[in-house]
Structures are given as structure tokens and as C-alpha cells.
């Protein structure tokens, strides 16, 4: 029963947050609604018995949040208090989101604690595959190749992103000084020629 309540609560929160994310005019507010959708979906994964997946998703989202926080702080001149002061504008919404997140966590914990003495949550997984075996096989089976490949893609992307963002402005923004001089000279010569033409 608790699982059903948790599912409908998480689903309602996910849909409502997604709607708020789409209709919010303020971009920062829209971005603040997005984690609520994300964590609701993590909760749904836990309800489906994929706790390991939920842990991974929370781990990645925390890393992403820390990265975005640092990026925002550096963009504001390296002062965290500036960033926090700007977030204070959304104090009411943040409190609402925190409350919803708390309810979700309580529901998921209730589901996790109540399922040990109840009927198996995943009757299908009981065909010889237990949760523990499932968790271990991800790290030992042939699926490891796919995971390593994805991690390599992620590492390449991170290195590419760092090199992209740390690059100085390119030639479009800062043209070569000699090139500018050449163009000015050519322009000047052309201007001079056009000035001279009427005389000739």
C-alpha cells in the first residue's frame, strides 16, 4: 500500500515539477524546478527495485550540482556570498521544494523499510536473480564493457569541455593585429585610389 502511495506521490510531483519547469518564465526558477523532477524519477527507480541505479544517479547529480555551483561562483567573481544572495530571491520556492523533497525521502525510506517483511516487491526478479546478485553482476559481468565505454565518453567530454572553456577568445573576436593593419592599408589604398579617380 505504501508503495502505491509513494508511486502516485512521486509521479504527481514529477509531472507538476516538469510543468513548472516548462511554464516558468524565469530561467533560474525553471532550472531550480528541474532537480525535483530528477529526484522524483530517482525515487521511482528505487520503487522499481533499482536502488543501485538510484545511488548512481544521486551521486552524478551531486557532482553536477557542485560543478554548477563552482561555475556560478567563479562567474560572479569568486564570491560565494554573491551567489547565495542572488538565490535568496527564490527563498520561498526553495523552501517549498525542500519540503516536497523531504516528503519524497520519507516515502521512499518507508517503502524500503516496509518491504522486507512484506510480499516481494519484484516478483519477476525472483526468477533466480536477487537484488544483491543484480548489483554485483553490473560490476563483474559483460555489462562492465558498456559502463567503461560510457565512462570514457564522459571523461572525453569533460576534458573537451575544460579545453573549450579555458580557451582564450578566438580570431573572430580578437583579429590578428597584422591582419587589421593589412586591411586598413588596403582600405586606405582603395580609398586613396577612389579619391584620386575623379581627378584623373
Amino acid at each position: 500500500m505504501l508503495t502505491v502511495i509513494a508511486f502516485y506521490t512521486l509521479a504527481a510531483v514529477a509531472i507538476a515539477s516538469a510543468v513548472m519547469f516548462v511554464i516558468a518564465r524565469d530561467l533560474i526558477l525553471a532550472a531550480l524546478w528541474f532537480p525535483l523532477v530528477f529526484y522524483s524519477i530517482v525515487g521511482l527507480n528505487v520503487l522499481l527495485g533499482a536502488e543501485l541505479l538510484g545511488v548512481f544517479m544521486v551521486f552524478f547529480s551531486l557532482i553536477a550540482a557542485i560543478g554548477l555551483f563552482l561555475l556560478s561562483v567563479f562567474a560572479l567573481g569568486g564570491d560565494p556570498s554573491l551567489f547565495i544572495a542572488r538565490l535568496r530571491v527564490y527563498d520561498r520556492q526553495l523552501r517549498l521544494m525542500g519540503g516536497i523533497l523531504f516528503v519524497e525521502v520519507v516515502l521512499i525510506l518507508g517503502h524500503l523499510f516496509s518491504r522486507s517483511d512484506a510480499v516481494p516487491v519484484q516478483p519477476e526478479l525472483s526468477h533466480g536473480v536477487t537484488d544483491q546478485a543484480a548489483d554485483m553482476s553490473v560490476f563483474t559481468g559483460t555489462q562492465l564493457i558498456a559502463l567503461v565505454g560510457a565512462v570514457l565518453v564522459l571523461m572525453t567530454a569533460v576534458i573537451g569541455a575544460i579545453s573549450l572553456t579555458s580557451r582564450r577568445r578566438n580570431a573572430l573576436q580578437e583579429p590578428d593585429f597584422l591582419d587589421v593593419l593589412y586591411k586598413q592599408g588596403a582600405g586606405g589604398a582603395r580609398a586613396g585610389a577612389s579619391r584620386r579617380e575623379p581627378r584623373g
Partner: protein
Amino acid sequence: MQSIHAVGGVGLEAYLALAAVLFVLGLLGIVANRRSAIRTLLSLELMLLSVNINVVAFSAHHGDLVGWVFTLVIGLVAVAECVIGFAILVCIYRLHGTTDVTDVSMLKG
């Protein structure tokens, strides 16, 4: 028609319906806010998350682990896509002073 077993106490169709609704909302997010690149990226993430729900639900339904691994791979690739996307956005912001994608018309013929 084959009967749908309950997944985690809830029918599989409920998970599929939820994933469909989230996918449509993500699509709406892209279509309705075409100007903002950040919102487009996050809407893409929303669509990928809805696909993840489908994959995990089917994985639990069939008792197959491949779905979980597939979801992990999708998640990692989504993170990589987001990282690259935001790096490109930072470059665009440095060049143009805005993240409005309609202002970026350097590649227009």
C-alpha cells in the same frame, strides 16, 4: 492480450503513462522555449529521464538486468552531452554576450 504484472505494486502501464507524459512535457519545453539554449538542454535531459523510466520499468517487469546497465549508460552519455553543451554555451556567451540561440547565426548561409 497478455496480462501486465504489477511492478513494485503498481501496474507497468502506470509507469509507461508517466514516462509518456514526461516525454511530452520535455518536447513541449523544447518547442515552447526555442530561444533559450539552457532550457533546451534541460528539456532534452527530461526526455532522456522519461526514457530511463521506461527502460527500468521494462527491466523490472522482465527480470532482466540489461535495462539497468542501459540506463546507467544513457545517464552517463546524457551527463557528457550536458557538459559539452554547457561548455559550448559558455563559449557562445563569451562571444555574443547572450545564450539566446537565435542570435547565433554565424553558420547561416
